[in-house]
C-alpha cells in the first residue's frame, strides 16, 4: 500500500479547505422540457467529502440532475448552490472553474486527440497563458506545459494507462475510455466530482478497478463525489448516502442500509427489470 499517495502532491487544490456548509444545495429544483418534467421539486444537500449516490430507474432524472449541477441545463425553477456559489444561472464553463468536474454516461471524450491531450484539456484552467504567448512559445508557456504535463503523467500512472498515453482515444477499448474520462475529470483538480454511471458496461474486474479509483479519489484527495450508478452492489458498498429518484421526484434520501429496506424504493423498482439489480446486491 502506498503511504503517501503521489496524486495528493500532483493535485494540491483538491485538498484546499472547502467553504463552510454543504458542497451542493439543490433547493426545490424543477427542470421541464417540452412535454416532460425531468426533475420535479428536488431538494438535497451533499456534505463535504461525502460519496453521495443517486439511483433510480431509467429516465428517473439522474443525468438531468447532473446537467443542472454542471450548468448544461438551467433549472426551470428552484435554485442550485455549488461550493458556495449560486450556480442557478451560471454557464457550464463558469461552474467548471469553481471546481466542478464530471464524466458522462455516454463517454464524451475527444476521440481525435491522444490520451495525453485529453487529460491536458482537463488542465485547461490551470494553464494561464494567452494565445499570443502560446504562438511565441515563451519560457513561461514551456514551463506551464511541462509542469502540467507532469500532473497529467501522475494521473496516467494512477489510472494505470501508461501504455495508452499517446494513442488516439477513439481507438481505445470502452473500459480504457471510461478510465481516460475519469482521468480527464481528475486532471481538472476538482473539489466536486460528478460520475455518471462510471462502471456501466464493465466486467467485474474493470468494475473493481474503477471502485478502487473512486475510493482513492475520495479518501486520498478528499474530493466530494456524486455518483449515478445502476450497479446497486457498488452503490451499497461505496456510498455514504443514497438519493433515490423516481419520475423526477425524490422518494428516499438516506444511508444505504435504510434506503435498501425503504418500501417506496422497493415499490419503485418492482415490476421493472431493475429489481433484479437490487437483489443482485453483493
Amino acid at each position, binding site marked *: 500500500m502506498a503511504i503517501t499517495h503521489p496524486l495528493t502532491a500532483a493535485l494540491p487544490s483538491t485538498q484546499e479547505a472547502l467553504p463552510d456548509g454543504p458542497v451542493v444545495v439543490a433547493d426545490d429544483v424543477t427542470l421541464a422540457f417540452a412535454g416532460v418534467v425531468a426533475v420535479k421539486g428536488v431538494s438535497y444537500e451533499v456534505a463535504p467529502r461525502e460519496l453521495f449516490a443517486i439511483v433510480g430507474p431509467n429516465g428517473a432524472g439522474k443525468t438531468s440532475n447532473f446537467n443542472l449541477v*454542471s*450548468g*448544461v441545463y438551467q433549472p426551470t425553477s428552484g435554485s442550485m448552490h455549488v461550493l458556495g456559489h449560486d450556480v442557478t444561472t451560471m*454557464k*457550464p*464553463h463558469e461552474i*467548471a*472553474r469553481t471546481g466542478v*468536474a*464530471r464524466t*458522462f454516461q455516454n463517454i*464524451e*471524450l*475527444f*476521440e*481525435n*486527440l491522444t490520451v495525453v*491531450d485529453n487529460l*491536458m*484539456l*482537463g488542465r*485547461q*484552467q490551470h*494553464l494561464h*497563458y*494567452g*494565445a499570443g504567448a*502560446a*504562438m*511565441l*512559445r515563451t519560457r513561461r*508557456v*514551456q514551463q506551464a*506545459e*511541462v509542469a502540467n*504535463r*507532469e500532473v497529467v*503523467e501522475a494521473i496516467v500512472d494512477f489510472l494505470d494507462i501508461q501504455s495508452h498515453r499517446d494513442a488516439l482515444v477513439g481507438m481505445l477499448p470502452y473500459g480504457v475510455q471510461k478510465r481516460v474520462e475519469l482521468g*480527464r475529470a481528475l486532471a*481538472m483538480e476538482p473539489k466536486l466530482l460528478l460520475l455518471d454511471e462510471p462502471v456501466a458496461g464493465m466486467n467485474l474486474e474493470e468494475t473493481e478497478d474503477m471502485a478502487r479509483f473512486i475510493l482513492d479519489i475520495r479518501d486520498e484527495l478528499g474530493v466530494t463525489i456524486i455518483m449515478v450508478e445502476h450497479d446497486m452492489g457498488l452503490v451499497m458498498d461505496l456510498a455514504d448516502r443514497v438519493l433515490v429518484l423516481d419520475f423526477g421526484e425524490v422518494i428516499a434520501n438516506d444511508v444505504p442500509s435504510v434506503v435498501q429496506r425503504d418500501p417506496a424504493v422497493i415499490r419503485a423498482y418492482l415490476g421493472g427489470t431493475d429489481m433484479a439489480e437490487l437483489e443482485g446486491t453483493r
Partner: protein
Amino acid sequence: MATRPRMIRSHRDAMALVRTPTRAVWLGILLVFAFAAPLWMSNGLLFLLLAGLAYIVGAIGLNLVSGYAGQLSLGHAFFLAVGAYTAAVISGPSTQTTFGLGINEILVWLPAAGITAGLAGFLVGPIATRLRGLYLAIVTLGLVLVGDHVLRTWTGLTGGVGFGRQAPDPTLLGLDLSTTGPILGVDVARSALLYWFSLVVVILLTILALNLVRSRTGRAFQAVRDRDVAAEIMGIDLTRTKLIAFTVSSAYAGIAGAMLTMRLETIEATQFNLLLSFLFIAMILIGGIASIPGSIAGALVIAILPDIAGPLGSVLTPVFETLTFWRADAGFPLDEFQLEQLLYGALLIAFVLLEPRGLIGLWVRVRNYWKAFPFSY
C-alpha cells in the same frame, strides 16, 4: 551514464516541434531546397511559387478556424481583401483616383495587413460565434458577397472595376525587393528577393501556428470542434475560443492577401470573390484538415496546378485529335483554364472520397507502409 541519443527522455523532448534527428535532417534538406529554388527555377515557376507561399499563409489561417476550431468559413476571401487593400493603401501613393499613404516599407504594411484583417475578424467574430454549421457558412458567404460589392463600388479604395490600383510595393529597409539584376555579384532571377523574404515570413508564421496548435489554445480549438458540451465542462469558454480562432485566422488571411498581391502590378477589385474562398477550402481539403504541414502541401499543389494544366492540355490535345469518334475538327474540347478547373474538381472529389485526411493522410499511409516493409500486410 551513456544514453541512447534518440530516446525521448523528458516532457520537453516529447513536446518538441522536431522530435527526432531523422526529421531534423529531412527538414534541413527541405529548407535548403526551398531557399535554393530561385537559383535554378524559371521566372514563371517562381512567380507561381510566390503565389504558393501566400497561399500557404492563407491556408494555415483557414485551417486554424475551420480545420482546428471546426468553424466552416466561406468568408476567407473577404479577409484576404482587407489585408490586400490595407497593404495597397499604406504602400501606394495618393492619385487622382485612389488614396494612399505612400509608405512602401514592407515591414510596415505587411504586419498592418495582418492587424486590420485580424481586427475585422474580431469584429465579425461575435456574430459568427453565435452560429454553427451551415448557418455560419451562410453568414460568412454573405461577408464575401458584401465585401465584393463594396470593392466594386468604392473606387477611391480600389480604383474601380477594370482599372484597379497599384499593388503594394515591397521595399525592405530601403531595398526594393522586386528589382532585377545581380545581388552581391550573383545574378538572381527577378523576384528572387521577394521569394526569399516571403519564405522567411512563411517559416515564421508556420512556427507560430505550430506553437498555437500544440498549446492550451490549440487544444481548446479542437475540443470546441469535436464536443462543445464536453469542452465547456472543461472550463472552456466557447465564444471566446471561437473568437480567438476567427481573429488569428483572419490575421493570417490578411497577410496572405498582401503577399498574394505584392507580386502583381495592379490589384483588381473583382479577384476577392467566393471562388477565392473555395480555392482555400480546396487547399485544406486536399492537404489535410487540422494539419499545418497539410496546409502547406495543399497550398503548393493548388499553386502549381495552372502549370500542370498547360502541359497536360498539350499532351491531351493530340490524343483527342486521333479519336475518330470525336469530332475531328473540334480537337481537344477544353481550354487551359477549363482543364485547370476540372483538375481542381477532380482532385477535390478524389481526396474527399478516397483519402479524407488529405495529402498528409496519404503520406502517413506511405510512411507506415515502408516502416513495416516487407511485412506490409
